[in-house]
């Protein structure tokens, strides 16, 4: 049992093998094998993750740091004291993420077998999906920021590759896909800058990148409580259980008395804890989870602590960080670090100001949208911030910024979603909006709620995306059937994703419809679906934060929640209700089982997942405690997270807010039904009823125009950037540098210089000199010929003159010196 965490490298390794197989031999294996190898890898990885979960439940949720074989000294430079091990971390937070990634990932893999059927690069798609799993799992299992960054970049690469997967589609679509991929890449680069700066600052400040060193306790409060509870339960019988360690290092392996002060004397020598550290329980071995030896980290020297432990220690000491010229207090440094990390999160998790890539990313195949751009990768930013909760908790300024960014994003994206026609685009903005909820939750310190919403959102948003994929698939096939049957191409620009081309699919695709409805209700936050619980948790925590910022965030999120319900129901009306508006919709039919089974399973979780974190004392909402009883206690998920997330407090249930939010959501659905119901979801001139109504035209147009956000960027950044690029490339480089400097100055100058050198200088001066020299020589020769008469007497006279000259020259200095 205690060796189970050793399996964690497999979580990464299995998809890696799947990827390699599909990359190298995928084309030869054929579609069926390639698909099932990819999916099988994901499923196996999920099973390993599940085993890790069983380990955690069986060992008081004690975190474990694992050194995978062969990767010990990953980055180790002794001379500069750089030591970054490749370590994987098994704790409740990472296991949660692993389960989500591999669980949802497995379903989406299976779904993709059906969805990608017939694609010419089918094996490559699965190789990329597996590659994504590899990097995502490195991201979530790593025990340091650098491994997180490796995963961070890796998933970015996969995202890029998969958004542009259909880069070769005809009619300019492929080009559009490529542009979308590029956009995602570039915007994420901006975020990566923040990420890197944050990591550099962390390393500078703390001298390490490890979250926690092996043996360190993440949540001291929880640990104290746990130990008190265990010792209370067992009395004097508390006993060590494990004497064996191996490569696994649990945080607090052996039993120890809870009393503070005593544990510090306990020898740390491995293998001896048992006897030495548990004087009260000598010899007795109780069955059951071990009682952790340590309740806090006081026994660890400061420079042996990981980033978070050290941050807390430094905060207690009021330490200053020296940056050469300036010294900043640790609080300020934390604000800087967290702000930089936030920039990274806004890129990866599509928050203001970097969110604009995510809607375009829907150009990728729908399973990609579901897996990467809804369920997992985009939540990496949230995961990162929750992982760094110690830093964010202690950086109040940043927290406020985070909360406001999240809430604003939630509101703005929710609003924009109202005005979209593309079924996936609506979901994309919805995703941005929901990510905004999570980020806002982080900002108000509700780390547990953020993770909770992350998990539930993963289920229902994956469900919705897969559902939309099923719809698109159906409509596409319907369109294909129609154009095939009629033997003429009546509409070249038919867009199977445009909701105006749908309608009445409820009867054509019943299973898709039902599951989509579940996802919609969950997303809208209707009781008792998963979204209700997770969203309410965030709202309650916002209320409980009891600050002005918290109230503002609460107000914005409540409105955003109403928007959510509204645009989702608008979508339901447009896609499934009413009459089919095109022949394609008319001929649409239900998807294959490979695509439907994941929908069903996800719908099951979208309904159920929320119950795992029902609040206590929620009165009628939990049917007076029934759900608590049924699902093993209130806030069980938050409690589950507590050992690894130091500040994962569960807020008290706020009945009033839950009621208001629920009423608003229901009201929004009813409103949407009034506006879009009864066959009037799309007007005769193919536009939105809100646009037709003059009272709401402006509002809808603004949403349809996406708040002009992309245009603003285009105007403010892209155009100036292009203008600068244009200026640099054309004006400066081409016109000035090439045309002017090269052609005119250098070229002509060179020619002129050449002319000058050749004509006046060479012909004139040099040749002149040479000619002149020639003339001089001939003159000399003439003169010499006169001297060189051939007459010996001339020569003799010359010789004599020379003698005189030589004598004079010799004697001159002597005469001058007067001697």
């Amino acid at each position: 049992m205690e060796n189970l965490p050793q399996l964690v490298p497999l979580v990464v390794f299995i998809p890696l093998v799947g990827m390699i197989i599909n990359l190298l031999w995928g084309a030869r294996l054929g579609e069926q094998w390639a698909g099932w190898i990819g999916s099988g890898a994901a499923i196996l990885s999920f099973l390993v993750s599940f085993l890790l979960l069983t380990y955690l439940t069986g060992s008081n949720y004690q975190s474990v740091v694992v050194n995978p074989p062969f990767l010990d000294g990953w980055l180790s430079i002794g001379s500069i004291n750089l030591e970054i091990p490749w370590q994987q971390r098994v704790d409740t937070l990472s296991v949660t993420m692993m389960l989500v990634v591999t669980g949802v990932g497995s379903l989406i893999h299976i779904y993709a077998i059906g969805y990608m059927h017939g694609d010419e690069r089918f094996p490559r798609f699965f190789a990329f999906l597996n590659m994504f799993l590899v990097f995502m799992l490195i991201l979530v299992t790593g025990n340091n920021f650098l491994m997180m960054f490796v995963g961070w970049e890796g998933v970015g690469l996969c995202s890029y590759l998969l958004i542009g997967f259909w880069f070769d589609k005809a009619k300019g679509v492929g080009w559009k896909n490529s542009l979308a991929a590029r956009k995602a890449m570039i915007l994420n680069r901006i975020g990566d800058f923040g990420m890197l700066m944050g990591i550099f600052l962390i390393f500078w400040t703390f001298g390490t990148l490890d979250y926690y060193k092996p043996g360190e306790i993440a949540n001291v409060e929880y640990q104290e409580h746990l130990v008190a509870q265990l010792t209370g339960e067992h009395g004097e019988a508390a006993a060590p259980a494990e004497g064996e360690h191996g490569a696994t290092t649990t945080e607090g392996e052996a039993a120890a008395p809870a009393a503070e002060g005593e544990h510090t004397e306990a020898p740390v020598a491995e293998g001896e804890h048992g006897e030495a550290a548990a004087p009260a329980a000598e010899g007795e071995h109780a069955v059951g989870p071990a009682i952790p030896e340590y309740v806090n980290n006081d026994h660890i020297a400061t420079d042996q602590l990981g980033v978070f432990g050290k941050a807390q220690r430094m905060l207690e000491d009021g330490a200053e960080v020296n940056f050469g010229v300036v010294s900043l207090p640790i609080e300020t440094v934390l604000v800087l670090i967290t702000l930089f990390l936030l920039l990274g999160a806004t890129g990866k998790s599509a928050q203001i100001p970097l969110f604009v890539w995510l809607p375009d990313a829907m150009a990728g195949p729908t399973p990609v949208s579901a897996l990467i751009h809804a369920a997992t990768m985009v939540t990496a930013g949230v995961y990162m911030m929750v992982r760094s909760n110690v830093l964010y908790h202690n950086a109040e300024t940043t927290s406020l910024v985070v909360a406001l960014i999240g809430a604003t994003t939630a509101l703005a994206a929710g609003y924009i979603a109202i005005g979209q026609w593309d079924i996936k685009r609506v979901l994309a903005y919805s995703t941005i909006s929901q990510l905004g909820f999570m980020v806002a939750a982080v900002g108000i310190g509700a780390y547990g709620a953020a993770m909770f919403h992350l998990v539930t959102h993963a289920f229902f948003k994956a469900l919705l995306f897969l559902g939309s994929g099923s719809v698109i698939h159906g409509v596409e096939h319907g369109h294909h059937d129609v154009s095939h049957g009629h033997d003429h191409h009546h509409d070249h620009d038919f867009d199977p994703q445009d909701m105006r081309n749908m309608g009445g699919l409820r009867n054509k695709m019943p299973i898709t419809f039902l599951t989509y409805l579940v996802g919609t209700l969950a997303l809208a936050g209707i009781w008792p679906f998963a979204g209700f619980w997770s969203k309410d948790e965030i709202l309650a925590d916002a209320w409980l934060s009891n600050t002005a910022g918290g109230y503002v965030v609460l107000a914005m999120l409540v409105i955003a929640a109403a928007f959510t319900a509204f645009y989702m129901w608008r979508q339901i009306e447009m896609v499934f209700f009413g009459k089919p508006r095109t022949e394609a919709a008319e001929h649409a039919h239900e998807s294959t089982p490979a695509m439907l089974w994941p929908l069903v399973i996800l719908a099951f979780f979208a309904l159920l997942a929320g119950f795992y974190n029902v609040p206590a004392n929620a009165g009628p909402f939990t049917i007076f405690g029934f759900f608590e009883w049924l699902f093993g206690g209130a806030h069980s998920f938050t409690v589950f997270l507590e050992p690894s997330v130091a500040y994962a407090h569960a807020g008290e249930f706020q009945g009033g807010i839950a009621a208001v939010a629920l009423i608003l959501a229901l009201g929004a659905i009813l409103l949407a039904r009034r506006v879009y119901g009864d066959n009037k979801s799309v007007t005769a001139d193919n536009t939105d009823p809100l646009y037709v109504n003059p009272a709401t035209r402006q509002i809808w147009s603004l949403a349809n125009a996406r708040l002009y956000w992309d245009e603003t960027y285009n105007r403010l950044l892209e155009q100036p950037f292009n203008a600068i690029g244009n200026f640099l490339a054309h004006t400066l480089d081409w016109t000035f540098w090439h045309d002017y400097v090269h052609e005119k100055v250098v070229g002509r100058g060179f020619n002129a210089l050449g002319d000058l050198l050749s004509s006046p200088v060479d012909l004139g001066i040099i040749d002149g000199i040479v000619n002149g020299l020639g003339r001089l020589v001939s003159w000399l020769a003439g003169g010499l010929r006169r001297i060189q008469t051939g007459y010996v007497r001339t020569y003799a006279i010359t010789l004599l003159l020379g003698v005189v000259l030589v004598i004079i020259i010799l004697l001159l200095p002597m005469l001058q010196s007067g001697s």
Partner: protein
Amino acid sequence: MFQVPTIADLNLGLTLPALSLALGACVLLLLDLFVPRERKEITAWLAMAGIAVSFVLNLAGFNESGTAFLGTFAADQFTGFLNIVILITAFLGVLLSLDYLKRAKIERGEYYVLLLLSAAGMMFMSSANDLIVVFIALELLSIPLYIMATFRAPDLKSEESGMKYFILGAFAGAFFVYGAALVYGATGTTNLPEIFAAVNGIIAAGGSQMFLLLMGTGLILVGLGFKVAVVPFHMWTPDVYEGAPTPVTAFMSVGAKAGGFAGLLRIMVVALPVFVLKDGQTAAAWQQTFWLVAAATLILGNIVAIAQTNVKRMLAYSSIAHAGYIMMAVAAAGTAGVANEATRAALLYLMAYMFTNLGAFGIALAIEKDDGSDTGVDNFIGLAKSKPALAAMMTVFMLSLTGIPLTGGFVGKWFVFKSALDAGLVPLAIIGVLTSVISAFYYVRIIVNMYLKDGEGDPAAGATRYVNWAIYVAFAGTLLMGIFPWIATNLSDTVVLAVEMFVR
């Protein structure tokens, strides 16, 4: 009282190389009587054998130092090195002459005897340790050359050439004797080391003795400067070089210079290195004059060479210019501490010049017609087509004369310029470099004529077997010195002519 020296006092062993050659010449004179008129090459072979014997003796005694003939004759590495140059010159001179004399129909045995005597004079010059010996060697060197220059008689040009050379040579010789007398008047001795010892006293005394010594130095420069053909004592050179039979020109252009510079270096470096006007100066009193002479020689020689259309005249001015470069080294030797280095530079330059110049004259001789015509620069046009090997070698000789790397000429120039710079004669070095550039003008013109100009090309009928051998040796020597300069520098590194210098 005057002691009658015994034969052992003469140290004849040290004089063997020079003495054997002189004796060989005398023996050859007798033997030649028995050589039939149509088989005079036998005399040539005998001459070459004599040279070879001398060469071997010279190498055997290369590292033996000492004085002979009661201190008037010095044997050291300087002598050894110069003897190598002189003997190779003589050897190649004989080779070049063999067929030339035949086709010019001037083949007589005395020619080789004279050549050997002249070479012996040069060798005595390189060993001279006394002003009187210098003068005797000078005459021994010169008089056979006068005769050889007129050897083509009754060709007017040849007769004129020899006559001019003789009259002017006698004139210059008189100056040398006068100079030697003045030096004797100042120092009371003609022995070079003794002059050196007396110089300190003269500097201390100053006045008329100093005046005498300065005059003497100047007149010695005139006498020897005439032999090596430096401006302004060069006037005879083009006329004599052009008029003399080409092998004679080749021999005297190298040999006379080697002898003359040997005398100059001996006198200036051994006897007068510390001859300064005032205490504390580091440059000898004669240095300034020497460098002015060198500069004038470089400028005039190189510039006037451009105007020449006859390759022999061109090479005459070229040889004047090269005398300027060697003069540069001699001038550099006037600076305290640089004398040995400058001497070695001069020796190396002489050796490089010897190979290159003999080669160049060899090729000029090869294209010359039997009557001595067709020695114009234009006669080289198209030679690359008719005689590619000769043209290629001529190219190397021209490049070497210019001082292009990988040729001996470069090595010589390198050391000369270096010694000039070490001696602080920066302007002279600059003039040297600039005139080298100018010299490319007329050297490259030959190459251009051979390769780039259209023409049938001379058949080079004169390139007979022995001539070719001589050219090959010269060519090999030029390249060897250029590519493996250390062969020559190792040889010259042992040369220590100057006595321990001291600056007072």
